[in-house]
Structure formats: C-alpha cells, structure tokens
C-alpha cells in the first residue's frame, strides 16, 4: 500500500529527473528551459518532504523566479539559429549514456549499500529559528562576503553584456 507521502515522493522524483532529461534532450532550447524549471520545482517539493519549507520556498523564488526566467529571457532575447543547433556525434552520445548509467548505478548502489541508508529521522526537524541563528552567528562573515560576491557578479554581468557603441560616452 502506497501512502500519500510515498506517492508525492515518487512524483517529485520523476518530475526532477524527467525535467532534467527534458532540459538536455528537448529539441528546442526554450522547451529545455521549461523542463529545467520543472526539475527545479521537483527539487523544491523534495525539500518540502524533507521538512525544509524555508529552503524550498527559497529554491522556488531564486531558481524558478530568477534563474529559469533569466535563462528563458536570454534565449528569447537573442533568438538566433545558432542557439538551437546541437548535434553531438553518435559516438560521444553513446559514451555519454554509458558514463551516466555507470555513474548512476555506482552512486545508487553505494548509497543503498551503506550503513547510513536506514538512518532514522532526527526527532525534530530543523527550524527557521535555527537557520537564522546560524546565518547571523557562525556564518555572519560569510553572509557579508556573499553579498559582495552577488553585487560583483551582477555588476560584472552587466559590464560584460553591455553593447559598446561608436561615439557613445
């Protein structure tokens, strides 16, 4: 008997991995971006199942709200033929599939075979309060540095993408 949590888990796992495969294999790169957003959403529902609602909502806001939309925007803004062609050689394709299957098998088998596989749940899930305390206490300096990194990367992206025109100041 499959209860509702298991059903949600299976659905989230299928959406996550299927969305990632669709992102890489969709013929149009636009559909690929939509598949990637679906994959992010599946990961967010896995976070909900793991009692991490704050991180799940953060994932939805940042990944689906910002990263996926940014990718979609970039692809549609520069809507040129060159963006859509992707023709890997058959040999490379086969090598990639073999590598991926071998990697997936080895990872899954080592995970399921390890002593951690049946670790019991912690008695209580980590709370928002804990996140706040760690973020402002122990990780405070890192938070500051991260703010600088974000500012620098956005400024760098804008400076890179800026179109230089003749005669403009």
């Amino acid at each position, binding site marked *: 008997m499959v209860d509702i949590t298991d059903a949600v888990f299976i659905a989230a796992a299928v959406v996550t991995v299927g969305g990632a495969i669709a992102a890489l294999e969709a013929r149009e790169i636009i559909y690929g971006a939509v598949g990637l957003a679906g994959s992010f959403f599946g990961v967010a529902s896995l976070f909900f199942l793991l009692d991490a609602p704050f991180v799940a909502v953060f994932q939805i806001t940042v990944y689906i709200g910002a990263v996926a939309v940014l*990718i979609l925007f970039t692809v549609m803004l520069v809507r040129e033929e060159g963006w859509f062609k992707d023709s890997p050689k058959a040999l490379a394709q086969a090598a990639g599939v073999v590598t991926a299957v071998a990697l997936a098998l080895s990872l899954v088998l080592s995970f399921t075979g390890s002593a951690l596989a049946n670790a019991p749940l912690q008695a209580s899930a980590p709370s928002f309060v804990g*996140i706040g305390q760690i973020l402002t206490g122990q*990780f405070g300096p890192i938070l500051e540095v991260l703010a600088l990194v974000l500012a620098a990367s956005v400024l760098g992206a804008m400076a890179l993408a800026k179109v230089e025109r003749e005669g403009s100041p």
Partner: protein
Amino acid sequence: MIALSDYLAVSGGLFAVGVYGLVTKRNAMRLVFSVEVLVNAANINFIAFNRFLWPAALGQTVVLFSIALAAAEAAVILAIVVVAYRIHDDVDVSQLKNLKG
C-alpha cells in the same frame, strides 16, 4: 516511509543526468543547464543528510548559500555566453578556441 537512501538515489540519478549533459552537449546553453542540474543534485544531499543525521539547521543554511551562489554564477555565465555569441555568431563551445593554450 521514505528512507535516506531514497533521497540519495534521486540525487545520484540527477547527478548522472548532469554529467551526461556535460559530457555530450556542445551547446553552451545546455552546459549551463547541466551545471544547474549538478548543483541541485548536491543540494538534495545536503538537505537529506541534515534531516536524517543532524539536529541543527547547518545543512539548510549551506544550501541557502549554495542557491545564492548558483544564481550569481548563472548570471555571469549567461553574460559570457551572450558576449561569445556576439563575437563568434555561435554558441558551440568546440568552436570557441580563443583561450586555447
């Protein structure tokens, strides 16, 4: 009851898909997709280990940092891809040889 190994299995599968993309694809946008998929696979591991093995919210905090960094990284990579396209009229990474040593 969903065990820790189930979450780890999903994460391993996602990671394998990302590696497949990195190995086979030559379109720069697909490579960006692959990198994002890999980061997500790692994040699932952090949250799962946090829930099963550690009482404090350390793993969740690390994932918050990881998500923010991935967003910054995506912005920079997309800008670089746009510039490379403007220069080369192509986003096939095997054609971008300016930095070849």
